């Protein structure tokens, strides 16, 4: 093990395409990911509350900052200032370490997630196995939290989540394998477990795996999309923290910062599994229709998308500023929102300038920047769709019961994913 680490640290030449594999860039990306994911969780927190509120004919946070934009920050400060309670009956050390396990597992998954062909911490050749292994460690945090609390509700919550996560992992793994099988249909003739390699396989074969061998790829994707909701303990599979049954499930006894670590881990895990689904089936960082619309003009049009997205957001914010009540109470909020709009507009302008500058020159710095922005943009956009789906599920569906959940996992999803795997293998051999 130490030898392996040392050899990894000593490797100066790029092991994999671009900067992935160079330890300098790896370090930079680790920092960016920590900051970015934390920021994304904060955004997601605000978005979930707002979107859920609008599903439910309410307004959601409106008071802290314009349209409640500063609410997550206020929440974070409140949680950090809260009294740190460890129940006297709890196992102190394990109680303390449980949220960290969940958080570590959730963040470690990001080491193999490629945001672009070169925008990744590492390109392990066993990337997808690493992901499956690490993300299942998340259950350990929950089980340990439930056990250490020494209380009945957390115990039942922990029991539920351990059974649930273990059984959905099986269907999830089989769905992943059928995607991996598809990578072996490359021209080189060998498959890959590397996350970057999987996206490149989709690029080479000219089709996202969700559309490959239709409907086989789609079914595998659907299985994964369901299993990942169960894996992250979200509605309608949120039995481990079923509020109306177990008060708060495994984190009933947690409060303050420790509780917020659980929340951070949950949202980070949601983003991570969505990123994996995007990588495996939705072409990762690739923009839509690279095979059909590959003329340079299309290249240019699609590269304008990030800029226009931010411009759109700025426009929405400006409209919101204009529609604020004229009362003097709202003066500061108006100014705040206007500043936010200007900020978004500035980002939009910057992105558009980069897109235009990187248009013709193929090897210039601007072109590299443009490509990087494009890749990350499309990746984040696809992940964002999944995040919205998570909110949508939560607003629409009641919660499954424990036995029904297990029934779906073992009696429905497992046979289907197994069948899809076998059929994919057969079709793959015939096509090859």
């Amino acid at each position: 093990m130490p030898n392996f680490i040392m050899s990894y640290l000593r490797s100066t030449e790029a092991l994999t395409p671009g900067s992935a594999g160079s330890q300098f860039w790896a370090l930079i990306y680790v920092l960016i990911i920590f900051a970015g994911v934390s920021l994304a969780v904060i955004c997601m927190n605000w978005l979930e509350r707002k979107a859920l509120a609008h599903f439910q004919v309410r307004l959601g946070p409106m008071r802290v900052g314009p349209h409640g934009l500063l609410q997550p920050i206020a929440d974070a400060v409140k949680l950090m200032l809260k009294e740190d309670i460890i129940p006297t009956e709890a196992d102190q050390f394990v109680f303390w370490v449980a949220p960290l396990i969940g958080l570590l597992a959730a963040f470690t998954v990001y080491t193999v997630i490629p945001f672009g062909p070169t925008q990744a911490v590492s390109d392990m050749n066993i990337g997808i196995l690493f992901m499956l292994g690490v993300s299942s460690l998340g259950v350990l945090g929950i089980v340990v939290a439930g056990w250490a609390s020494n209380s009945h509700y957390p115990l039942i919550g922990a029991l539920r989540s351990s059974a649930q996560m273990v059984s959905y992992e099986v269907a999830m793994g089989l769905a992943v394998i059928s995607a991996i099988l598809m990578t072996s249909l490359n021209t080189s003739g060998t498959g890959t477990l590397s996350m970057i390699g999987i996206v490149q396989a989709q690029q080479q074969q000219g089709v996202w795996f969700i559309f490959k061998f239709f409907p086989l790829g789609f079914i595998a994707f659907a299985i994964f999309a369901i299993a990942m909701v169960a894996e992250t303990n979200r509605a309608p599979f949120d039995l481990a923290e079923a509020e109306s049954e177990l008060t708060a499930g495994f984190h009933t006894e947690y409060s303050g910062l420790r509780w917020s670590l659980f929340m951070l881990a949950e949202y980070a895990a949601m983003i991570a599994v969505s990123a994996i689904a995007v990588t495996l089936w939705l072409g990762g960082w690739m923009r839509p229709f690279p095979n059909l619309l590959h003329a340079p003009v299309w290249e240019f049009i699609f590269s304008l998308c990030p800029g226009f997205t931010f411009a759109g957001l700025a426009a929405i914010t400006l409209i919101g500023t204009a529609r604020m009540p004229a009362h003097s109470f709202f003066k500061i909020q108006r100014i705040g929102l206007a500043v936010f709009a200007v900020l978004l507009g500035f980002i939009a302008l910057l992105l558009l300038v980069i897109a235009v500058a990187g248009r013709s020159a193929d090897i210039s710095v601007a072109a590299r920047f443009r490509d990087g922005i494009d890749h990350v943009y499309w990746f984040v956009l696809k992940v964002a769709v999944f995040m919205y789906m998570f909110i949508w599920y939560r607003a629409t569906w009641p919660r499954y019961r424990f036995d029904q959940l297990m029934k779906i996992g073992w009696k429905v999803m497992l046979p289907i994913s197994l069948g899809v795997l076998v059929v994919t293998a057969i079709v793959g051999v015939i096509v090859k």
Partner: protein
Amino acid sequence: MNDRAKENKNDLSIHSLSNLDLEAPEKTYLDSNELILNMGPQHPATHGVLRVILKLDGEKVLGTECVIGYLHRGVEKIAENRTYSMFNPYVDRMDYVAAVSNGLGYCEAVEKLLNVEAPPRAKYIRVILTELNRIASHQLWLGTHALDIGAMTPLFYTFRDREEILKIFEKYCGARLTTHAFRIGGCQYETYAGFEKDVKNFLTFFAPKIDEYEALLTTNRIWLERTKNVGVISGADCIALGVTGPVLRASGVKWDLRKAQPYAAYSEFDFEIPTGENGDTYDRYMVRMIEMWQSMRIIEQAVNGLPEGPIMGKVPKVIKPPVGEIYHSIEAPKGELGYFIVSDGSTQPYRLRVRPPSFVNLQALDVMVRGMLVADVVAVIGTLDIVLGEVDR
């Protein structure tokens, strides 16, 4: 186990029944001990301050015991120290979700004791407000029941629409929840200008809203899985336990006091009594949804046929009923709400006893959840539609 936990255990044993021996956990499946789970009185899904002690084997419920009384205010004792009209507002505080029904039952019981009758216009106003309140009560039930099963959104839809009913109450008598809408002998207030229009507007407003709720739930696969064959109770069991209301009707017994022994003006209206077949949570859901439609039918007929005339019957200034006793019951949204009043000829009741539907229906909890899972306990508490203010009184 340390001393404190032992103490707690002894505390529980005060309440132990023969079928729920909390002292000695039995060895069960896989050599694991039974678990005693204390659900409530502070719990998001026990609808107030109900405490349910669950005996669990894993997640399976082996037995339950309800501990009630956390909201006991001694309403029946208060009645003995108040005059008949002074006690009238107190009944609103029992089932605060359906305060109008409570008031109707009490006023009619005293009227029966006094041998007076409310004039027809008062009766019609009573029917309109009571049926509006039935819809409001069912809306609250639907929202919280769905929330217990994990669907958050219906709660906000039902509360949004319940607001329209509460607005009508507020315009009529100034209060939204504990209305004190009726007086012994009739109604205190004449309807306000535009009352009929408001009620009719509500009917046209509300019809598509029920479809909206149903779109979210009725054919939702998860909702079906969570409610079908959950908390099944047979009609015979219901009758044996004294369970009434939608719970009884969902088990296939066609018993509704509005038809069986009509009070107020119900004999003059045309409406159906929905019944279920299986007596499960889904049937109870459907029965209540159809009841909302039927209530709308009744309101429409009552508003269109609202007679002119006085709204107060011939009631003496000082209410002094003759010596005697009376039992009068009405069909509240939750079941049979009865008042038993003993009069000794003075201005105050000698004894007043309330037969609250929630209290009696709650007895069925154990029968319904035995052998089911923890999640079903929550679903069944929701489907019984209890209000703890009425259970404890």
